[in-house]
């Protein structure tokens, strides 16, 4: 059911998840997760049940049940449809996921991703265009206090990208301060 192949090309975190080759899934491709072996559930495959193991996993097909790959990486490709809770070290989503997501390291939802569920992870990245409904529970660890976050976001901090310019957005500072009596 699963095809395994070696990943041999480093991946950018924000890059779309790998796309498995449907016609030749056993062939090593640069689409596998960054390190180690990766099992691939191809676009034509439907899995019902619980998935666990010690390899990375690329999902291009449909999965219903649960996915638990504790210290590994799960990538849901653009054609992937997951109706399951997913737990892994790193989770990248470019397809559809309906379920709770728990990552030890980070969750990345790319622009084609559509997630409905609750996410628990130290860090979550959402690309522009991604659809998310639910809650996100984040705890970056040592810096996990509001004080530090507020401090980080002060002028020297690099702001999150805002891709779209709005021509009529106020380009002036507010000119009055009003206080309630």
């Amino acid at each position: 059911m699963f095809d395994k192949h070696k990943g041999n090309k480093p991946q950018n975190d924000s890059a779309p998840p790998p796309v498995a080759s449907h016609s030749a899934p056993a062939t090593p491709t640069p689409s596998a997760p960054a390190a180690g072996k990766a099992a691939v559930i191809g676009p034509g495959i439907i899995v019902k049940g619980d998935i666990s193991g010690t390899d990375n996993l690329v999902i291009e097909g449909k999965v219903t049940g649960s996915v638990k790959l504790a210290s590994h990486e799960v990538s849901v490709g653009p054609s992937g449809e997951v109706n399951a809770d997913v737990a892994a070290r790193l989770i990248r989503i470019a397809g559809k996921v309906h379920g709770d997501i728990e990552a030890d390291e980070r969750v990345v939802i790319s622009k084609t991703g559509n997630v409905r569920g609750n996410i628990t992870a130290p860090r979550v990245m959402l690309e522009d265009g991604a659809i998310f409904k639910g809650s996100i529970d984040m705890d970056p660890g040592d810096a996990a206090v509001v004080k530090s976050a507020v401090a980080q976001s002060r002028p020297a901090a690099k702001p999150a990208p805002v891709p779209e310019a709005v021509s009529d957005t106020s380009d002036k500072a507010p000119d009055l301060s009003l206080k309630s009596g």
Partner: protein
Amino acid sequence: MNLAVSDQAGGPAAVPAKPEPGRQASQLLSALFRRQENAGKLTILDVGRALPETVTFCSAISCRIHVVDLFEVLRGGGLDPEGSGKTLQRQFQELLGFASGTRLDICLLWDFPHYLDEKQLRAFSGALFPWLQPHTLGHVFGVHSGATQLLNREYGIVDERHLSVRTRTTPPMKCKPHPQSFMGEWLTCFRNVRGVLLPDGKIETLLQATV
């Protein structure tokens, strides 16, 4: 709300630099988060669409953010237009979908209240009230007068001093801006703490729960 006009912090030297396109300076976001510095892990409600910059900002703090896109619900006709106040309140409670025990620290309401009429806004307020605590703060855009035009925009948090402003990709919805006095009367779960009049007639407002 009684509004007393005062000078904005300091003289000419205090005028912030011109923000980049797509951003809007905010004087209240810092207060929103600074007041919660000792609150531990924050629980945040965002009634808008999940935006990358907001998630990135929140990713730097210890928090749980609930993203409930109520604009989409309105657009999809998800509220019963003929429903009673109780029916609407129940609908909002279901939409918010909080787990038992949830207590909100921050509510990001943006300009959502202006897309509701009085009955809906009172129902929304009633649905939100049980999840608030005395220290819960809110952020909302009020308007100086009912004639103020609200554009089809959505908002996010870039950093402590800037909001992001995006043009919605969806068609504008029916909107009737509520002047501050009405907003204060209908959004009963909050009271206004501070407002900053923006050049476009909106009033960026810091709210405090009435719990």
